[in-house]
């Protein structure tokens, strides 16, 4: 079976996100003063072959843990569909 994982990797909530901070000032220049906090992360999709959804999830979870995110500064979440 072919599955698609939709993964979000985000900076940990307690950490400063300099990119997000820069975007907040950009939004102000655009006239959107109401934007208070912007956090920027990554959206990653993976097409993966697996026998079933559970196996696909296990593989994607390993990918997230070992390569796609660094737990010291980021967290991840993903959804899976076929």
């Amino acid at each position, binding site marked *: 079976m072919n599955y698609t994982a939709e993964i979000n990797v985000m900076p940990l909530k307690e*950490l400063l996100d*300099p*990119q997000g901070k*820069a975007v907040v000032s950009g939004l102000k220049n655009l006239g959107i003063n109401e934007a208070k906090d912007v956090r920027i992360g*990554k959206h990653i999709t993976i097409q993966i072959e697996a026998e079933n959804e559970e196996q696909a999830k296990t593989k994607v979870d390993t990918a997230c843990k070992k*390569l796609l995110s*660094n737990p*010291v*500064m980021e967290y991840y979440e993903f959804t899976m569909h076929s």
Partner: protein
Amino acid sequence: MKFGVVIFPGSNCDRDVIHVLENVLQQEVKILWHKDKSLDAFDTNDCILLPGGFSYGDYLRSGAIARFSPIMESVISFANSGGYVWGICNGFQILCEAGLLPGVLMRNTNRNFVCKNLFIKPEHNDTAITANLDVNRAYKIPIAHAEGNFYADEKTMKRIEENGQILFRYCDENGNVNDAANPNGSLLNIAGITNETKNVFGMMPHPERCTEDALGNTDGIELFRSLIAYAAKMEVDVMDDLLR
């Protein structure tokens, strides 16, 4: 002692490091490609150096993909067997990603790529690369990075401090460690750290860029000299033990 310099796709300080070791310090250097697997030619009194650059284009996170290069498995076992491993700039980022050093290098808080000379102060003389340095002196060494903001959680920071794992801290030219001298937002002004067993070193500043009079600054050579002298002394000590 001899040195192995690992070249990853995107490394760009490898030549500088090789030049310093071979031509300025007359050391034996073996050039290693990231696809090499064996470090059998090295023993624990040698040093594997991971140079600066933008390995794999800094894609995903600095150092994240290089960490899975074929040679890294050997570098990890070499470090675990007690060999010296030294990462400079991107090399430091790779060592953190590989788990050989604690913490992580995040985006600079000021959002700038900072490329300039600044000052760092050795924290103590307890490691090979700081053994012969003056802890009361501010060494002028350049930095060039956008991701040098050292961070670790509270528990890890406590361990780093208690174990004496801080190697260098950013300071002003008089050696004062303060916020104004911190170029990237690093916790405790950390510019370099070591592992618990003090044989793995990571630092953001580039000592290889200030080793000759022609470059207008020679402060960086002291770190290389310290390591070489320390390793030579260890070799003599081991021989003495064997002869006893």
